[in-house]
């Protein structure tokens, strides 16, 4: 009970509430601007969260996360352009409603759906994450090493059409994570150690500059390619009645429940992400509404049902993706990978340890997610006529501002040690340029981040397991849970290959 109250107080104080509100507004704006993703928004705010207390910092990032996920529906509905891939399914019925003169209801419906999805998945997160975390008590080094491998292979296999490209970038992330000093023997693992032994490279690659570079700077360079568009013309749509009829929403209970289930489940599977969840829920809603007995409007005809289903699923992913992130240390999608990175930088170790030793922080995270969803609902409904105006901000202003924020954000982490801070700016820029070319070549970026996050966990537990087994490398095939994880890893790699053959 004490921990519950402590968690509550860590979030419900003036300072934290203001930071969450700020994060929420920034998130909605970032989400509404096509091309700027939730992941990028979180990565940009990590340096600021780093300066705040653990709970406040995480709450700020959760605010950005929820805001950006829901904000993407604004251009999807008004312009037919999704703010990010998560809102693609919202375009179909949402934009059709705008053409019918029902833009207000579509926007309001999307916000209410996002709130329902977010809160429902939060309840599932609260119920299941402690249980899953408890299960990790049965994990020894062998199981943990295999778990890290599962996280890497799943995200590598589902984040791109080309499995080899996903695996290669995952390996790149792993290779970068090993730079620095060996944690067990203190041996230097840097190129040309005689020359670089006294440089910041000995501490390895800092996670925050890497995240900012890979998600912020690479996106800046990609967005430059479409700078000729100037800016998107703000929609000239009359937004009248915003709040959708509650009776109508209540009649959609089946669509809402199924979309919540799909969103939370897909979110909880590492690497899958919201873009899969929204399409699955949209298709499911299509099936439900096409039944002759169903009294709801048919999804696909430009109706509220077609907005509610993907938006519920979209936001249900936020809670779902946090389940493996908090309980296992394996992020559900790229955005939670950045959130997880921010947690690790704060010295928070996900898993049973977090739930047993820092339960107040866990409660604080739950309260923060709740508050973020409440703010998302409030701000989106209040600002429903205001937020679409951000679409008028010229790219010529946005891109340089994000670039400078990315560079200074990377610098700020070690801002008191100027040389290390400048080195971090260099890391962010180098990885940003690398990320740009990789994205252009169709290589996914998320596995690099996963490699960077899970590399340490994998190596540490792999070596510990082999050592404890007396140098036996086959120890991983002697433990049932480890075998299960290895099977899962093989399955995640084999499945896309089998699908291709079909």
């Amino acid at each position: 009970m004490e921990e519950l109250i402590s968690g509550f107080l860590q979030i419900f104080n003036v300072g934290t509430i203001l930071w969450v509100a700020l994060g929420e507004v920034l998130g909605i704006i970032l989400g509404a601007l096509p091309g700027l993703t939730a992941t990028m928004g979180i990565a940009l705010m990590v340096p600021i969260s780093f300066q705040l207390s653990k709970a406040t910092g995480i709450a700020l990032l959760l605010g950005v996360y929820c805001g950006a996920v829901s904000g993407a529906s604004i251009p999807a509905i008004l312009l037919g352009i999704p703010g990010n891939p998560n809102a693609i399914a919202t375009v179909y019925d949402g934009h059709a409603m705008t053409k019918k003169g029902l833009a207000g209801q579509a926007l309001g419906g999307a916000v209410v759906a996002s709130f329902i999805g977010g809160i429902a998945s939060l309840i599932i997160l609260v119920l299941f994450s402690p249980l899953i975390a408890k299960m990790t008590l049965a994990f020894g080094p062998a199981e943990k090493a295999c778990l890290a491998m599962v996280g890497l292979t799943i995200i590598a296999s589902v984040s791109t059409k080309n499995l080899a490209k996903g695996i290669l970038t995952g390996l790149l992330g792993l290779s970068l994570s090993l730079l620095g000093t060996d944690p067990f023997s203190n041996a230097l693992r840097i190129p040309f150690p005689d020359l670089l032994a006294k440089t910041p490279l000995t501490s390895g690659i800092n996670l925050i500059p890497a995240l900012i570079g890979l998600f912020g700077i690479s996106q800046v360079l990609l967005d430059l390619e479409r700078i000729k568009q100037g800016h998107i013309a703000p929609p000239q749509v009359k937004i009248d009645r915003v709040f959708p009829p509650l009776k109508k929403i209540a009649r959609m209970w089946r669509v809402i429940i199924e979309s919540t289930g799909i969103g939370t489940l897909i979110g909880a599977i590492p690497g899958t992400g919201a873009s899969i969840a929204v399409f699955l829920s949209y298709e499911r809603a299509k099936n439900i509404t096409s039944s002759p007995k169903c009294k709801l409007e048919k999804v696909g005809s430009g109706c509220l049902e077609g907005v509610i289903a993907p938006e519920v699923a979209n936001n249900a992913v936020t809670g779902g993706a946090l389940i493996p992130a908090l309980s296992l240390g394996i992020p559900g999608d790229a955005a939670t990978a950045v959130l997880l990175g921010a947690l690790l930088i704060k010295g928070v170790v996900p898993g049973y340890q977090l739930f047993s030793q820092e339960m107040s922080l866990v409660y604080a995270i739950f309260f923060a997610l709740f508050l973020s969803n409440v703010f998302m609902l409030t701000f989106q409904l209040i600002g429903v006529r205001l937020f679409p105006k951000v679409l008028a901000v010229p790219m010529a202003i946005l891109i340089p501002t994000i670039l400078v924020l990315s560079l200074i954000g990377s610098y700020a982490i070690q801002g008191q040690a100027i040389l290390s801070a400048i080195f971090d700016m260099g890391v962010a820029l180098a990885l940003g340029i690398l990320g740009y070319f990789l994205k252009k070549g169709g290589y996914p970026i998320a596995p690099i981040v996963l490699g960077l996050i899970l590399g340490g966990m994998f190596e540490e537990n792999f070596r510990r397991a082999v050592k404890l087994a007396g140098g036996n490398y086959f120890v991983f095939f002697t433990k049932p849970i480890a075998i299960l994880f290895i099977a899962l890893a093989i399955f995640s790699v084999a499945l896309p290959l089998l699908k291709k053959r079909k």
Partner: protein
Amino acid sequence: MKKTTRIIIPIVFIFFSLLYIILSFSIEQRKMIGDEMGWDPGSRAMPIGIGFLMLGVSIYLFFKEGRSGEEEITLDSASKKLIIITIMLSILYILFFRFVGFILSTNVLLFTLIYFYYKRDIKWNMMRNFSIGLLASTGTMILFYSIGRFVTHFLFLIGRRSNFEIFSGRLFMTGVTFLVLSFIFFTMLLLFRKAIKNENFRIPLLSGFITIGVTEFIYIIFKQIFWVSLAKGLIFW
């Protein structure tokens, strides 16, 4: 993306993997502290293993991408120029950040990028107006920074020398500085509103105003609120 560009990425990865493997072999092979029996795979086992895996996948992708016949997407020359100038300026920004300082280097980077992004191209005949705009923006930026520093110092001194300690509180000083600078900024914006509408002055003036606003805002957030040590460089006061 061009076929040649598609092949370049696996080639770069092949070279990176080879270098990684060579360097991994040069890592001192030390065992885990306390591992008397020598059962720990050692400090270079993992890098070597990952290096070889990366090499294998890169070689596979090299052959696969070579056979692939995806359509070619090329960038226009203006976009290429903008991307190159962004990367070059960012590199220079990082290299000179310590010596030139946050205010001046950020001012140059932001003004240059905003100006050319608005123009959507880089041509020699733009350089005259660009240089004048950059000089004016830098001068105004220094003035803004100096006013901000003066306000902060003034409040700090009042707080120290009087009984009103609140004046030297971090948030109070930051808040007042922010308000004073915002007032000056928006007054200037009002004074120049007619000139901004003029086609000839529009882009340099907008670039200048945005540069000053963003630079000062970042300075206040990171330096005055979070006490990040942003390099002073040439502006030593």
